[in-house]
């Protein structure tokens, strides 16, 4: 039976569409009049910041996306039943964050179309932007999407049995899935390896972004290392915080079976407490290192954060973090980490993460110059706010149909390990060939882009080789899909046991009751 959307859903769609329209209008204003409509201006004598709200939001979204996807991967290979919902909820949220990050970067470019074209043709691996550009496209967006769809195929096969507007697409995505023991075994294997391999792949764009945000020639190495560590740790904490918030929202809107169990909240709360306990000292140490530095720009930047123009924002950031940590500490001390407490701490952490990125990026540009320029200032204009809101609106609008396509509520549970089965030689060989092809393509693309073995490094040896690299990464990302979806032999298909899917469904029903 097809369900019609209720008033609440319609009003949410209306609100998001409104945000999107305003954002699109603002972006076209920016394209027409140039970036002068933003609050950014040249650094140094220009007295401003060349990177503003767009890059801050990009860092914010990318950090959140990487952290949330990492949580999903850990939850997948840990096989913890309490965290089962984490992976289910986290993947679409992470993909939405990655999309938001990509759009924010595009909005920041002086020539967005030229950026798409020239990055594909001439991107240089020597620039930290190459890692974020290629990783966001190939690893974060594409691999996450593949991982997300593969992990929910069993649910999709069940959902596809009921008539809905998405039935055809659900059938297509779940095509061939019968829930046999062999399929479940392959799913288990692929899920484990994809989760394991994606973790370092997710760390790469996050580290590259941390380098873009923090590495400056005048900054001492100790300060840079501390700030990179704080950036990564706080992104992790923010990701956990957002995940807690979204899990609470999903539990409220889509029913208890779709959301996180109480133990799941407690586990995420403890992980949040751990990351906060590590990031707070790192943040304090970075400020002390900044104040103690002999470099005039570095100490001016630290002073601006602690006592001058950015003081209120900085102390709000520290205050939010302390309150979040204190809430979690007292819950952990009493052995009562309630969902409300953890969600509250999570929301505070997300707010703190945004402030941290803003201060790290903007304050350095306005107050951290090594030459004795006048201190600058940066105030975002309504155009920047509108564009960012438009991007958020667009991403959430895209998330809504994806949630209808693959609902958060699970129908099939698969937490018990499936018995290992006899290896299928042909399948393994095809997968190996596919993986090798991806590796060779990616390696070739990287070597050609980097002008490996040549003196100059301005242009890639082959124009367009960055795309070859990204295609190679995309091939690597689909290796799991090849292993999982490669057609079974006739004999194998006959011997597979479809009754196991019915068993899983039965277990799901019991659990939801």
């Amino acid at each position, binding site marked *: 039976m097809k369900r019609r959307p209720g008033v609440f859903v319609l009003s949410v769609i209306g609100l998001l569409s409104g945000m999107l329209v305003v954002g699109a209008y603002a972006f076209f204003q920016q394209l027409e009049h140039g970036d002068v409509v933003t609050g950014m201006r040249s650094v140094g004598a220009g007295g401003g910041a060349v990177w503003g709200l767009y890059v801050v939001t990009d860092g914010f979204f990318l950090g959140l996306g990487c952290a949330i996807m990492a949580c999903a991967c850990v939850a997948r290979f840990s096989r913890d039943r309490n965290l089962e919902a984490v992976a289910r909820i986290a993947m679409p949220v992470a993909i939405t964050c990655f999309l938001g990050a990509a759009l924010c970067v595009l909005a920041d470019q*002086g020539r967005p179309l030229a950026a798409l074209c020239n990055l594909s043709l001439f991107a240089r691996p020597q620039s930290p932007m*190459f890692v974020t550009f290629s990783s966001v496209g190939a690893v974060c967006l594409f691999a996450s999407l593949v991982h997300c769809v593969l992990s929910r195929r069993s649910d999709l096969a069940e959902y596809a049995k009921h008539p809905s507007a998405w039935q055809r697409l659900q059938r297509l995505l779940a095509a061939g899935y019968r829930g046999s023991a062999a399929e479940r075994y392959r799913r288990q294997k692929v899920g484990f390896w994809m989760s394991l391999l994606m973790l370092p792949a997710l760390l790469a764009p996050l580290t590259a972004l941390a380098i873009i945000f923090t590495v400056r*020639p005048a900054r001492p190495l100790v300060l840079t290392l501390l700030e990179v560590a704080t950036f990564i740790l706080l992104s992790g904490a923010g990701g956990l915080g957002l995940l807690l918030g979204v899990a609470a929202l999903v539990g409220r809107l889509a029913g208890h079976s779709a959301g996180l169990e109480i133990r799941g909240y407690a586990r995420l709360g403890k992980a949040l407490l751990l990351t906060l306990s590590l990031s707070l000292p790192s943040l304090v140490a970075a400020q002390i290192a900044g104040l103690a530095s002999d470099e005039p720009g570095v100490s001016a930047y630290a002073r601006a954060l602690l006592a001058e123009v950015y003081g209120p924002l900085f102390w709000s950031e520290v205050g939010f973090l302390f309150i979040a940590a204190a809430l979690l500490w007292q819950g952990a001390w009493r052995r009562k980490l309630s969902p409300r407490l953890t969600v509250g701490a999570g929301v505070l952490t997300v707010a703190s993460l945004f402030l941290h990125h803003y201060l790290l990026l903007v304050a350095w540009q306005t107050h951290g110059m090594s*030459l004795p320029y006048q201190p600058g200032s940066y105030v975002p204009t309504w155009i920047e706010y509108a564009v960012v809101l438009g991007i958020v609106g667009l991403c959430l609008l895209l998330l809504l149909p994806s949630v209808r396509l693959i609902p958060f509520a699970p129908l099939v549970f698969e937490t018990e390990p499936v018995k290992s089965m006899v290896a299928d030689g042909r399948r393994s060989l095809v997968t190996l060939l596919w993986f090798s092809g991806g590796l060779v393509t990616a390696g070739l693309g990287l070597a050609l882009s980097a002008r490996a073995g040549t003196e100059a490094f301005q242009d890639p040896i082959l124009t367009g080789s960055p795309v070859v690299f990204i295609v190679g990464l995309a091939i690597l990302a689909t290796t799991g899909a090849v292993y999982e979806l490669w057609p079974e032999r006739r004999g194998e298909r006959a011997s597979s046991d479809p009754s196991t899917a019915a068993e899983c469904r039965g277990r799901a029903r019991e659990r939801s009751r």
Partner: protein
Amino acid sequence: MSKSPGKLTTRRQVLTLAAASTAGAALSKAAKAAGHSAMPSSVRAGERHRFGMAIDLDRCLRCQACVVACAAENNVPPLGEARSALTRPIHWMDMLIPHAGSADSELGPGPAPIPCMHCERPECVKVCPVGATYQADDGVVTQIWDRCVGCRYCMAACPYGRRYFNWTPPAWPGADPSSANPDVAIRPAGVVEKCTLCQHRIRAVFERARLDDEPVVDAALQRLPACAATCPTRAITFGDLADPASALSKLAKDPRAVHLLARLGTGPKVFYLRGRR
């Protein structure tokens, strides 16, 4: 390889020709090197250079003639009332006016002209994601405006803050850019630009020398960029740091020579002369 009946050259002839041209090139290179050592204060077209600039702060009047000449030469759109209200000026050559209360820089307390430093190890080149900025063979850090995507990473990375972004489309009084210098491209909105040490002038001088088969004498280079040509007190000296006999190389050995933010290791090729007072 099969030999076609219409072909006049044989394999032997090709090899002989190749050997002769290689020997000829080697001989001419040796002859050029000998010529170079005979005339130390002049440079031949096609040789490797390290162009740089010296700014004598003891001579500088802070008249900003260099700032105006640079803008006129390089088609930096004139500001005017409306554009200055946007507070996004572009000055390839600017005046560094130290902020009151800040620690003294290497240049002392007063204002000083400051162009791009054309570093030996430029941070902007390292971070550019598309190779839109690069260090040319002559050491000039230059920009391919058409390739720039406007990410502004180079601006964030430059410790001297010597890069400018085109926040607006270029506008000329009466929308008439006919007064623009035809040798320099007009940059569109959304790209970063910077001082090129008047590279078009350098290229013109060396191209003329190549055609005439004459060396470029150092005296022809010293006042080549627009800022140096305009300076009323000859405070700005341009030249080739790779030529040990050039006036610039001698100034670089002057005890008054200071490099801005030398501690960062960027190796600026533009340096200042400042009396120790």
